[in-house]
């Protein structure tokens, strides 16, 4: 296992796409320390910003595990494009965590900022704290978002979680901001807490399950039926009853929005259309 520790508090953004198990594979701490990162507009060696050490003595043949301890809120693009291995972050982390990652695992024992798992294709990201806006959303202007993998957030997330999502799974155990599942094409989003308005705006397909409170459903969704329960994945099932809405009809979409009946008495007016 390789242990990284910031040597000081960063004042400027650090672009650290090289902090990834794929890059560290087969390198000695000295070689890792010589990798180049940008801090603000200066290119620097990783060792000038982080203390790098090999933490365990046990012989590991498999993939690299990487542990980073400290405040990483200014450090961007950690685990960018990673294929395998594991990153454990003990502290808060900056934007673009796990951008375009294809495999492996990232665990954050703290909060993450925006753009977690942006355009990811595979692997798992687990955040024990909160995440910022644009969870799994693609870069500005792109119309293809998350293509696979799994993101689990134990806290809350900001706006536009899962925008343009094409496949995969996002589980949010806290609350979600506005526009969850904006323009999503497929895949699944589960929100255990409450969700702000406009969930599923312009969605084409896929499903969004909201167990908590959802103030209102967009007028371009129509109620379809009741469900007793809905399966999220093999380990998780939401007990209903749940309203099932279909939309976004403004885009000719056929996405499904499942909203708990118990926590949303204000939606009971839809029942007369059933």
């Amino acid at each position, binding site marked *: 296992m390789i242990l990284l520790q910031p040597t000081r508090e960063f004042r400027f953004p650090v672009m650290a796409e090289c902090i990834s198990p794929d890059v560290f594979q087969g390198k000695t701490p000295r070689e890792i320390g010589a990798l180049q990162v940008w801090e603000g507009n200066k290119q620097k060696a990783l060792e000038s910003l982080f203390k790098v050490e090999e933490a365990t003595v046990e012989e590991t043949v498999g993939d690299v595990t990487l542990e980073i301890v400290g405040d990483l809120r200014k450090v961007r693009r950690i685990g960018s494009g990673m294929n395998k291995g594991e990153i454990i972050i003990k502290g808060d982390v900056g934007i673009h965590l796990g951008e375009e990652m294809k495999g492996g695992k990232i665990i954050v024992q703290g909060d993450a900022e925006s753009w977690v798992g942006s355009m990811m294709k595979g692997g798992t990201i687990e955040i024990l704290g909160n995440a910022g806006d644009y969870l799994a959303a*693609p*870069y500005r202007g792109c119309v293809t978002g998350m293509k696979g993998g799994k993101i689990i957030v134990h806290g809350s997330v900001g706006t536009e979680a899962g925008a343009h999502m094409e496949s995969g799974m996002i589980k949010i155990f806290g609350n979600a901001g506005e526009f969850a599942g904006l323009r999503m094409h497929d895949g699944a989003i589960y929100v255990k807490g409450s969700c702000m308005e406009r969930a599923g705006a312009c969605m084409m397909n896929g499903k969004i399950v909201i167990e908590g409170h959802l103030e209102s459903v967009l007028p371009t969704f129509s109620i379809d039926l009741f469900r007793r329960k809905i399966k999220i994945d093999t380990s998780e099932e939401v007990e209903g009853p749940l309203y099932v809405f279909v939309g976004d009809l403004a885009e000719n979409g056929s996405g499904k929005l499942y909203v708990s009946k118990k926590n949303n008495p204000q939606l009971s007016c839809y029942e007369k259309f059933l």
Partner: protein
Amino acid sequence: MDLLIKNGFVFDPLNGVNGERMDIAVKNGSIVRDVVERKARKINALGMIVMPGGVDIHTHIAGSEVNTGRLLRPEDHFRDFERKTSVTRAGVGRSIPSTFTTGYRYARMGYTTVMNPAMAPLEAKHTHEELNDTPMVDKASYPLLGNWWFVLEYLAQGDIEQCARHIAWIMDSTKGYAIKVVNPGGLEAWGFGHNVKELDDQVPYFCTTPREIIRGLCKANTLLSLPHTIHVHTNNLGKPGNYTTTIDTMKCVEDLAANDKPVIHLTHCQFSAFKGDDWRTLESGAAEIADYMNNHNHVTMDMGQIIFTDTTTMTADGPFQYALYGLTGNKWVNHDVETETSAGIVPFRYRRKSYVHAIQWSIGLELALLIKDPWRILMTTDHPNAGPFTAYPKIIAWLISKNAREASLKRINPRARGRSLLPSIDRELSLYEIAITTRAGQAKALGLKNKGHLGPGADADLAVYSVNPETTDISRKFRSVRRAFKRAAYTIKGGEVVVKDGEVLKSVSGRTKWVDVKVSEPALITEDMKKRFRTYWTVEYENYPVYEDHLEGLEPINVKARV
């Protein structure tokens, strides 16, 4: 300093030089017969080919439309960026690179002259500002005139001479180079939510038809003796079955041709050569068009070759872009330029596995290979509509090598492969023919006297590529040819070495050409016209023209008109 490019295999089709080993001398930015060898800087081009600098007849690189495309597509920028170096500026963009990067990328491929084919007259100032910022290449713009109200009115009255004088005024006020006609009549109709379908359809609210517009502008072009012909984007572009409209368009100006000289240029012809009733039954109409082209001399064309990639489509053809938006559901920009033209932008991805896109890919190459005369079918991608210009080396490889085509054919949609004519075509273009279709032919079609050749007096714009035609079988080694054309060994612009081994050594600003037409009496500027400017334009008549101080490196081409 004088330059001497020694021992290269020179391909100079306009002077009939086909791969002869000779020296090219450069003095004061022009090509000369001889320089004093002792004093000149020598470039050893031994085992390399020397060609005139590339000329691109149709590439959207500047103007409000291109700039809106840049705004629309941040995702096009973030994957492709260039860092600043000691000589070049930083830049971004793949299908719509920023202005400086556009210039550098052209120069790296050995191109030295590019033509921006769509300039709404109202946006002329913007276009020229951007062209000023496009270094390394000489450039010019074609104002869009096929839907301009005054032109339509003059043509409805049948007053060709007055129309020609009016065009001379526009060329002067917009600093334009040639007459561009996009979907004649259709764009004005689009302003009212309609389109025109056939050449004889009435343009709503104007008593004229596309046929009259094309013929009228063609006659006006001849009266004005403009260096280029009219530059036409046909009606019905991008619709299945449109090859008949294309052939009708060529036929409708058949009688206006004299002395075997071309009178019309059909641009990005691939998009206008679709056969079939709908997208499922789409087929190639290239054979029919090529058959017509092989029997007539009055038309030049460019390919508009599809590249399988993600790109941005942008044309003045608003209704076509609307149809494309309907097909893709992608982001869409629609724009009406007051009384002049319209415009549309839609990002688009051409996929190998799509039947339609694969057929389109095949059509472009079929046109280039089935039309026998390389002087009249020129290589373009209609950048960025069918693909970015940086893909030109790929097209060169497809043209010179059947192997290259077959390698690509293997990967396309199988149904399209079955319908493609390419397996039956054995023709492989020689480097001489490549020099024609990428530079000499383009310069000739454009009427650029000093470009596209290496005779004494020509501008010293050269490209040197490291391919040895004596030792390389270009058909089998198409990959090495592709690499060579991607990164020119040397690009020389105006007598200065600006690129070496694909790296920019020096940034030079090119010149902007425009035609200064001398007419016997000036265009009628009536009070009525000024009043209409006040009523219908956001710009007053007095503020409308582009003044010469808007342009850097201005180069007027003097033309004496017959009216």
